[in-house]
């Protein structure tokens, strides 16, 4: 009970900041010397580019959340149909889909992102699809396993014998059957994607160096940890709250699910 309340409140702060922040913040422009001490005009001081740290932090949550959500949506958009095809289109389709996805699993995710960056493929336009593709194998597995579950199989066989077309069975029956496991998986995957994107941005593989994204801001200002700690520690604390909150909440929801089933 405690950890659920803690999880939700940890999650709420960075989420609210991320959504409302860009509205409250003024334009993210340079206003003075880098790493100025906090004063009345700039309550958190300035960052490495001489921008007001508070404005930067307010504007920096949206890229974090936006990229995560975009990557997740893209991943499920590809993973769910692939899983349904693997489960419902016979042995050959199953083998083809699953074996080729195994290849993607063979490499550590961050390694793939680094190689992409090394060959000049960086920026959010590459990072988001790449992170999504890296999630597809796991999603496809979850969907396939749920669609092949005994309860689901029997009903599909019955519907097939009644002469319903394949795609109508998949969309009308199997897709609904798969929703539960997919929702559970999405919770865990949210934490994974969040971590991966933050790490990639910290290593400079994604967003440009002047982006207000929290991970980028932390990396750019980390050498000022002694002189201007606020501009590093505030985004660090926000990212931590976001990641811990996500994991606590999904962990609680998972535990609740397990009790019911």
């Amino acid at each position, binding site marked *: 009970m405690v950890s659920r309340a803690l999880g939700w409140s940890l999650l709420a702060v960075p989420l609210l900041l991320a959504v409302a922040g860009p509205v409250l913040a003024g334009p993210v422009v340079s206003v003075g010397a880098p790493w100025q001490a906090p004063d009345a005009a700039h309550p958190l001081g300035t960052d490495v580019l001489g921008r007001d740290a508070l404005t930067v932090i307010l504007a920096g949550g949206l890229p974090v959340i936006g990229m995560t959500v975009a990557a997740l949506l893209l991943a499920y958009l590809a993973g769910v149909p692939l899983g349904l095809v693997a489960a419902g289109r016979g042995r050959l389709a199953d083998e083809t889909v699953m074996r080729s996805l195994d290849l993607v699993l063979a490499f550590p995710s961050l390694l793939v992102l*680094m190689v992409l960056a090394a060959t000049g493929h960086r920026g959010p336009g590459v990072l988001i699809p790449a992170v999504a593709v890296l999630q597809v194998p796991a999603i496809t597995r979850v969907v396939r396993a749920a669609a092949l579950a005994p309860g689901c199989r029997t009903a599909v066989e019955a519907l097939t014998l009644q002469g319903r077309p394949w795609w109508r069975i998949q969309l009308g029956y199997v897709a609904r059957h798969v929703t539960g496991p997919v929702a559970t998986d999405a919770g865990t995957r949210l934490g994974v994607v969040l971590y991966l994107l933050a*790490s990639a941005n910290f290593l400079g593989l994604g967003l440009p160096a002047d982006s207000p994204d929290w991970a980028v801001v932390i990396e750019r200002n980390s050498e000022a940890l002694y002189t201007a700690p606020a501009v590093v520690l505030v985004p660090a604390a926000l990212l931590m709250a976001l990641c*811990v909150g996500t994991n606590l909440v999904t962990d609680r929801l998972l535990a609740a699910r397990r009790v019911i089933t």
Partner: protein
Amino acid sequence: MFVLVATFAVTALLPGDAASVVLGEQATDEQVATVRHQLGLDRPLLDRFGHWLSELVTGDLGRSLVTGAPVADEIVRRLAATAVLAGVTLLVLVPLALVVGVVCGLREGSRIDRALAAVTLFLHSIPEFVLGLLLVAGFAVHTGLLPATAAGTDLTARPEVIVLPVIVLVARQLCDVARQLRIGLAEQTRGPVAEHLRLLGLPERTVVLRHLLPAAAAPAVQQLARAVEGLLTGTVIVESLFAITGLGTGFVEAVQNRDIPQVQGYVLVFAGVVVLGNLAADLVAHRLTPRRELVTW
């Protein structure tokens, strides 16, 4: 073999042309063409792969596009720091996960189980660079207890520089390994094997340590192999954060310079470690799993 092909394919088929990176922005087309020829980038793909592979067999990973130094030398030079970091991390991680897993597994649902589960999940959730920075802020900036960076120091000469990096690396991996062990052990203690052994009159200690723990450890060892993968990713970030001259920082530098031969070298080393880690875990797990000959009908 797959690792070799994939390493080459990924780096060669996505060329953000290395030649133009070497020469900088202002290079003329002619200069680029000359350098491309020097680097052998104008030859057919299969030709280049064969050449790369034949040199690889002799331990030659090519030369850095930026410094001209052999890639293999650079990797060997950086290997020690990363090996020490990863080695110490595993030495801390395995016993710690064992203790946490056993304590939680035997007292499933108790207060201490829930407390440890919450703490490890909390530590697992924080990205390495965030946790590292917060630890530096707490231990190095204000109290000066531990050094904040390893820049310019030899890891073996000053062991204290490695403390914070190891804490960060262990924190993220502990949760999954301990959790696997806990689930396995909790299942085992409720199972028929445990019942049988207890009825034989064996002391609980022997039952748990000699019989249940090995059986419960198999999935945890598999998880440990995945942790090795996570540790590799972690070292890249932790080394960057603490300025350790290891494979991770070398990889990041190579990526920033678009130094393709170096990137290929690092990918090969990293992928090789992942493959070896999985192989080792499979072997250990196979030893730990009770033989199943009787049920293979």
